[in-house]
């Protein structure tokens, strides 16, 4: 990687142009001055090759899935098939205005087909594709839960959330207007059933769970939990972030979940894009379908259309129909895999257990059970030299490997969560294992070197404290001396 830190504004020269527009002969319109800004915004003035070089050199400072593996627990960083980019760029899929109502059968087929496939794969009745991301899906799903309770006048306001859950879970519950009650987890990350029964009172509207849980252990008590919640008049929400090891092996709907979301940018291979766009479709059981947000896809004797005026739903949660360009890719992914979708779970789980067994002599494994697609180490086995998970992660960067997830879940002080997805070969995994073993040895033989890592990256050990205490968030906020 080369450290390229020029700002586009520094490449700007008045009078340069990187575009051409067609000349028009319309009469020039001048608006009332009171409505206008005093000066034009200072946007760059560069040339086309200059723009290309700027962003190309910027890209050299990044790591991607085609650079190497991302063993990030809970992120499911699998291969993003290239063909999907070509499909999404076809004019039919990239140029249609969302309010076009005729001649859009092909687009509506994609929405309807993906919805049906996701329902079948997950054991739900129907899905909405309108939610833009996992967290957005959680919010939408909890709004559905709230609406069901409102419709049934239960007055229940509490949602149970494991303390090991991803931060978006309690945050989404709060945004949806619930109170959050934290559930204790056992050392293996599964729900502490004693705590569960202690907190399951008549005010519990539902529970948010992911299965496998956030340390990759299958929630063995799931059928008992779902029966208990239903008996108490609550609903179960499934966080689909950990769906990968279940694809084709077990369905959340069959476990008793009533509402769920799927992260298409995890399980279904759509690109992460450096932080989005993702997609978080929400699926529900049959009697909750009427609450799914509008616009809702609708099929009648005339064919498919969007129903914008459906009554009784939670309302609208997006401007239009969600990230169409994203779910088109998820649809293509399912078509390419076909029955191989079932192999995804099997190989993801094989990979995770293989890496876990290969490294358990060097890293502290808190639980002996088989994991599913991911597992957690609680730092190094030998902590005598005080080398932390952060140090290990930073040292991995020197070997050109993106670190695993660190310090999540909060159950373990030195959490290092590894998810070696099914698109990684045994060779790649063996390389990762070898590097992790080397770092464990370095931690014993030369701890200072690990503690001061990374050494070979283009920037190292950033001053995060300064970044937060004296925020410089735009080019114009830079201190005057620069």
């Amino acid at each position, binding site marked *: 990687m080369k450290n390229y830190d020029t700002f586009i504004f520094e490449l700007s020269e008045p009078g340069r142009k990187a575009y051409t527009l067609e000349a028009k002969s319309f009469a020039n319109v001048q608006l009332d001055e009171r*409505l206008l800004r005093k000066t034009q915004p200072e946007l760059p003035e560069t040339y086309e090759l200059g723009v290309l070089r700027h962003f190309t050199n910027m890209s050299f400072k990044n*790591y991607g899935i085609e650079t190497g593996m991302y063993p990030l627990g809970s992120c499911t960083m699998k291969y993003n098939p290239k063909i999907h980019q070509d499909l999404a760029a076809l004019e039919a899929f990239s140029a249609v*205005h969302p*309010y076009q109502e005729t001649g859009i059968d092909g687009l509506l087929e994609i929405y309807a087909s993906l919805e049906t496939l996701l329902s079948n794969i997950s054991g739900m009745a129907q899905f909405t594709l309108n939610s833009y991301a996992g967290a957005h899906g959680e919010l939408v799903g909890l709004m559905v839960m709230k609406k069901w309770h409102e419709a049934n006048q239960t007055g229940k306001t509490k949602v149970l959330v494991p303390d090991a859950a991803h931060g978006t879970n309690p945050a989404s519950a709060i945004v949806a207007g619930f109170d959050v009650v934290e559930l204790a987890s056992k050392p293996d990350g599964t729900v502490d059933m004693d705590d569960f029964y202690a907190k399951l009172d008549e005010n519990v509207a539902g529970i948010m769970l992911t299965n496998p849980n956030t340390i990759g252990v299958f929630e063995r008590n799931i059928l008992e939990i779902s029966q208990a919640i239903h008996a108490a008049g609550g609903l179960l929400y499934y966080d689909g972030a950990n769906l990968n090891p279940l694809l084709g092996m*077990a369905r959340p709907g069959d476990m008793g979940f009533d509402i769920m979301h799927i992260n298409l940018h995890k399980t279904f291979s759509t690109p992460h894009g450096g932080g989005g766009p993702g997609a978080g479709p929400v699926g529900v059981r049959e009697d909750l379908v009427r609450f799914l947000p509008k616009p809702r896809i609708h099929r009648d004797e005339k064919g498919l259309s969007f129903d914008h005026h459906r009554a009784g739903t939670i*309302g*609208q949660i*997006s401007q239009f129909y969600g990230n169409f360009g994203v779910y088109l890719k998820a649809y293509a992914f399912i078509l390419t895999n076909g029955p191989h979708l079932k192999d995804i779970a099997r190989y993801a789980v094989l990979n995770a257990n293989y890496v876990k067994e290969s490294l358990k002599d060097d890293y502290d494994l808190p639980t002996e059970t088989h994991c599913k697609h991911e597992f957690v180490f609680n730092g190094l086995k030998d902590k005598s030299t005080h080398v932390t998970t952060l140090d290990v992660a930073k040292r991995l960067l020197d070997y050109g490997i993106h670190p695993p997830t660190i310090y999540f879940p909060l159950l373990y002080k030195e959490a290092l969560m590894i998810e070696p997805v099914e698109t990684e070969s045994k060779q790649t995994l063996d390389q990762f294992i070898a590097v992790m073993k080397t770092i464990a040895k370095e931690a014993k033989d030369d701890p200072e070197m690990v503690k001061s890592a990374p050494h070979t990256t283009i920037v190292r050990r950033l001053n995060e404290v300064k970044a937060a205490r004296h925020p410089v968030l735009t080019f114009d906020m830079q201190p005057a001396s620069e």
Partner: protein
Amino acid sequence: MFKYLPHTQHDIDTMLKTIGVSSIEALFDDVPAEILNPELSLPHAHSEIELVRHFRTLAANVNVLTPVIGVGAYDHYTPSIIRPLIERQEFLTSYTPYQPEISQGTLHYIFEFQSMITRLTEMDVANASMYDGSTATAEAMFMAAAITKRSHFLVSGTLHPSTLEVLKTYAHYKGLTITVLESPEGVLTIETLKKALTDDVAALLVQTPNIYGLIENYDGFSEILHANQSLFVINQDPATLSHLKPAGAYDADIAVGEAQSLGVPLAFGGPYIGYMATKSTYVRKMPGRICGLTEDVDGKKAFTLTLQAREQHIRRDKANSNICSNQSLLALFVTIYLSTMGKEGLYEASQQSLDGAHYLYDALLHTGRFKDPFNQPFFKEFTLATDGDITALKQAAQAAGFLAPFALSQLGLNEKYVSFAVTEKRTQAELDRLVHVLGGVQ
């Protein structure tokens, strides 16, 4: 064997031996038997040739009409260099930049995006993006509630009705209340605000240009609101900010909007990209990811996500927002767009949109079939009233390959109102043809 799955039988056997089990199935023995191995109805595995054929068949069942409408999604020109840049795997496939040392590329463009948004809006700070304009507006509502500790909102009735619907949904579940301010003249006036403002109002939310395409003037609004300890939230189409007075110049507290108009493909509704910008004093209440500039241990300039203590992964149930993944790649898209079109390009594209829209407006009025119900300044979009058969108008336009006009009754507004929008992509010949076709409808 399958092309996305590299495992050979030899690999599998070796790995199972290391794990100490005889089969992969043994690793699922903790899954209750009654739910294991469900029957799924999956399509057959499509080869690449079949996949392309399937999608081309779907594409053949799509008739792309030339839009002469906007209503929240605008057919602006997309420079050709954007796609190859955003499709670089280092940008496209990369993860959230939580490990800054190998994510300086992502952080660099987020920083430039934030910088350009603040220059467009004349606000102090911006975040790394929101899902879309409507949810960005809803998040601004939450932010204002958190800052003022009030829960009552005044919302202009001239907002895009879908944005208003999203606000209502979000408000309902969070326990906030909304009063919609009606504007029969088509634009929100300061008199309407004065009459409605009570001391429990957290904020006023407005949109300009509004759903009718009309440009609203907010002179005097911020003084009244701030004297009441209320905040001012303005939703603006950023493409119009080449010309129009931005949120910062109106002393707004939060600026939000839909940045699809910055060259993002229409793509049947998404992915688009919301933006949010605010005053420095409120930065710690702003949702979403924020990138900051700092130094590394060797004193080199370095970018990093900062102020993360606001976010869900730290604050959990105390967070003001649950947003995690946003629209990052679209932020890169918009940054490249603004770098390519630049200061003069954005202005020129907007001026052409402005000129073309007024040309179409005059020509349509000239047919005698339309009236202007508002007679207010507009930018690239306008609303006309007609007593004619709107469906017939749409069908005639469609037969000529156009998507126009938009019937505002579809969004619950006056059933005589129709909306048109013109961008720099529309030629005089196209507009003349559309007018001819609409003028000829019985």
